[in-house]
């Protein structure tokens, strides 16, 4: 009997809205990842992403100051400098790439940048070996 070749599956980690509309992803471990990567590694990753976005959307005096400054310049300052939020999304993308490279890739798991999906979800590509 011919063995079916490796196949892949996509899952989408959804947003966690329990704390309002702030960007947060659900750290519930998807069943599809069982046997591929550890639950702890997965949760660590999602938690770190959540921390980065929490920082991006944090309200503090520094952010208010930046907002006021941008407003006073008629928002022309945004032509010259990246916003704090943009830096954070880039950091999140870099972090995911790092995790992919160091941990996930060798287990056949590939996590996508949430910005690719409009911060709605994180795409995870799982490749299963055919004989599994």
């Amino acid at each position, binding site marked *: 009997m011919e063995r079916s070749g490796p196949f892949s*599956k*996509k899952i989408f980690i959804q*947003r966690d809205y329990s*704390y*309002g509309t702030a960007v947060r992803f659900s750290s519930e471990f998807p069943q599809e990842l069982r046997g591929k990567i550890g639950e702890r590694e997965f949760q660590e990753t999602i938690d770190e992403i959540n921390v980065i976005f929490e920082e991006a959307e944090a309200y503090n005096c520094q952010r*208010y100051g930046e907002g006021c400054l941008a*407003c006073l310049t008629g*928002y022309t300052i945004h032509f010259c400098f990246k916003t704090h*939020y943009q830096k954070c999304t880039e950091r999140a993308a870099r972090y995911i790439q790092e995790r992919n490279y160091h941990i996930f890739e060798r287990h056949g798991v590939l996590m996508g940048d949430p910005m690719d999906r409009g911060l709605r979800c994180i795409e995870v590509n799982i490749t299963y070996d055919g004989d599994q």
Partner: protein
Amino acid sequence: MTQRKWRVFPGNNRFYCNGLLMSSTQVAVFLFVIVAVIVTACLFFAFDCRFLIQYVHPGTIPLALIGLLGAFYVLMFLLKAGCTDPGFIPRARQDEAHYNQGLGEPDPNTTSTGYVGGTPSKYRTVEIHGQQIKLKYCVTCNMFRPPRASHCGLCNNCVENFDHHCPWVGNCVAKRNYRYFYLFLVSMCIMGLYVMSINITVMVLASRMVGFVNALKTYPATVIEFFISGFAVIAVFGLACYHTQLIATMKTTNEEIKNTFRTSQNPYRQHNVLKNFCITICGPFPPSLIDRRGFVKDEEHHGVDYGATNPIMMDPEQRSMQDTADTSSQLPLTTSTDNN
């Protein structure tokens, strides 16, 4: 072949400067507002300020400078409100759409109509600060709309924190440009009153010199400015007050009109009025999610579906709707493979 994403962006929007700026397709009123502001400002500097500096006192130059600064702010806020991405949520591609449909819960209303094999659910319930909120499935965008998002019929896309579609700025007013819109209203109000008060001053001083009737004849520009500014203030003042109240209670116009929170408390509310204002006006700047200037990848072209996890049978009507939505979104592309 590399193509910028704005070229294939589905929905009724126009893009300018290679995707840097965007607006809806109806921009006539927006252009009219810009022209009105510029004309009034020019008349103000050319006639009123010159009159004050030449005939009254050279010390009135700061009045002209304040006017210049105000005009700059009004125009910048207006342009920002009209030309930024209001917070469109990119439509879900085929693979994600399949997955999303599996997330919904069976809807008793649709199952009772007796479709065989179950229908895609229209709702999904999430809990926000302990409150149950229903998310509706958007057939055009293939996803459950995030809380507070709504589908704008004119732009034909879902928008985050949808407030309203404003014909005056020719754009949706939502998460990303609400602050510009509000600041435009406020600055417009202040500048309108400012210009009107200078107009009155000029008229009073001029009529002292040459009499009221002659003053009207000599400075018709002042009269025109007065009426334009007066109209602007009347149009904008009420709206500015309304939005001030909305910001204080952290609501959107959409929620206020639909009376979303009549039975429950607003789960998004921050409790301190001052903090609500700070967050709305000086808070973080959420990035644009549609990546207008990015390049289209091949995968997005073909809508490749690597095996969805929850293939749910769709009812024919919705399926055809989705197909049309998909083909419209992939208009200039090659044949889309239907993997259902």
